[in-house]
């Protein structure tokens, strides 16, 4: 029963959601919205579990490895400060609250820094990807070179030719490859969903 019940629930809810897709009635819309709201509620109910996991993992790391203690301390301190700062509802709206200061002057700059690092990572990944090892890699390198030329101000008709070539690359070979992947992903998604609804696929429950 413990193994069959989840599969049965998945089957029933899966079939309902498939039918719902073809029914535009208000009741069908309500069902869809209700199901999506349920996902949010489940997420909120699972949040304490996540917080508990984070704290337990951090404490255990600190106990195990002395070098981890400083990081563990920073994690716990950051967590506690944000919890205390967010206790009062007014702190969410007041621009001068500790919560808003923490968001605006600590979290957002840290996130921006991390995102900025992406530019350097793109350069290093491109260096590896564009090494001319095979003829396919050479095609990739030449194509990338042409694409990058688009943003260079070239003299005379050269700029127009490059623009036309880039347009063709993006709209013909690139689009064909993208569509092939999209079709594959679409069919794969439907096939995978069918396997889940029919109970063939149970790996997400930890079972074969």
């Amino acid at each position, binding site marked *: 029963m413990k193994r069959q019940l989840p599969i049965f629930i998945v089957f029933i809810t899966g079939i309902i959601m498939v039918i719902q897709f073809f029914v535009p009635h208000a009741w069908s819309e309500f069902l869809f919205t209700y199901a999506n709201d349920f996902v949010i509620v489940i997420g909120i109910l699972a949040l304490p*579990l996540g917080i508990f*996991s984070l704290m337990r993992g951090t404490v255990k790391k600190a106990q195990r490895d002395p070098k981890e203690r400083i990081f563990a301390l920073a994690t716990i301190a950051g967590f506690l400060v944000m919890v205390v700062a967010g206790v009062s509802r007014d702190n969410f709206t007041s621009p001068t609250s500790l919560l808003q200061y923490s968001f605006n002057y600590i979290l957002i700059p840290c996130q921006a820094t991390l*995102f900025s690092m992406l530019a350097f990572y793109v350069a290093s*990944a491109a260096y*590896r990807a564009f090494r001319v090892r095979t003829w396919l890699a050479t095609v990739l390198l030449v194509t990338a070179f042409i694409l990058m030329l688009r943003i260079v101000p070239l003299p005379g008709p050269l700029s127009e030719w490059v623009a036309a070539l880039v347009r063709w690359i993006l709209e013909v070979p690139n689009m064909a490859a993208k569509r092939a992947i999209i079709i594959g992903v679409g069919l794969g998604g439907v096939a995978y969903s069918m396997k889940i609804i029919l109970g063939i*696929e149970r790996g997400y429950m930890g079972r074969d």
Partner: protein
Amino acid sequence: MRTTREPPGISNIEGRTSGWLGHNIEMDKSQKRHFRIMTILIFTAVILMAALLGSPSPLIAEESSSQTGMPAPNVQGPVSVTAEDNPNDNGHGILIKLVPPTDDESIIAYEIERGLAPGAPDDQWFQVGTVPRGMTEYVYTDEDPSLQGEPNPAYVASGDPIYLRLRARTASGVTSAWTEPVAAIARGNWFHTGKVNILVATLLFGFGVVYFISRARKGKALYVRPIPGLQAVDEAIGRATEMGKPILYVLGTGTASDIATIAGYTILSRVAKRTAEYQTPILVPVNDPVMLAMGQEVVKEAYVQAGRPDVYRPENVSYVSAMQFPYVAAVNGLMLRDRPATCFYMGVFHAESLLLAEAGSVTGAIQISGTDQISQIPFFVAATDYTLIGEELYAASAYLSQEPDQLGPLKAQDYFKVAIVIIIMLGVLSLTLFHWDGILKLVYSPV
């Protein structure tokens, strides 16, 4: 001299009349005649002025028409207007169809008003839409029964009659007369007729899946092309075991309801079973509490199935952060500190894909990635050793298990891909050679 005690009248005019200030004025016959003529002229002039002021000039008429909505004789409204339930909707839409006048060059748009009753006075009608010239259909829809706490008068209630009328408006603001009010009732529909093609395709695909599963169960060998990324899974796990280092498994920043994430769990289940057999630690940092619960269950069950529940450590599957870049920072930190020998990235990835893959590359780990996010596939191809492109991620469970039930849908998927390629080619040929767009209409869906 007689005084003016007698009331003034016609009889008085014969001999004398009363002045404006009550003075008596003696008049002879010629004076009387002049007086009569003047009286007639003044009277006529007054009547003419009154008539002129009462019928304004064309300019005044135009302004007045635009302000009050009075019809101008030279603007024609729609020839006919019909209203009916809008098909394939949730019951809050009215489809209005209009036939424009033959000469509609001067018209800029048609205004639609809704009234409380067909014969309601003008002040009880209010505008609910505008149809630009050239369009003959308009869907009036409003699903909100309340507007900022107040009842919404434009709300289209399902099952109640809705009264509508139209008129034409020119660019200069001249309007035609209102059409006769038309009524319609909106109703919710129980089947979307525009999705028939999707339903047929889904049913055909379903039959294909069942057919290939039954064939596989009967012992028919189904060929699955080799996928290098999945062939390398065992090699990657073996490498980590030999090096005595952990394996990092990242499920991305999707949610538990994404198919790619579920596929990621399936691969995690297989990988975790192998790591349990080899007693290699597997670290699974997640960004969602629901995914945490699922991840712990998947890994725990895999360890139980491998017969090594004692090796399972729940803290190895840990929640980090729900935010994208804090999650990346934590996982990158984990990579740099623990130096995993193998990194798996399976699931939904966004801007963090390259940040993770490059950090893994710096640590010297062998990396296998898989995602259905098209924009992130190039980054994974550039930065990781093996990449499962799109559908290959979904095929992983079938490929790794080689079970007939798993291979059947994979085979049906391949045959449908061939069918789609044939339809595309037929469509291209029919459009190019015969200018026939029938296939396009067949596959088109309003979704």
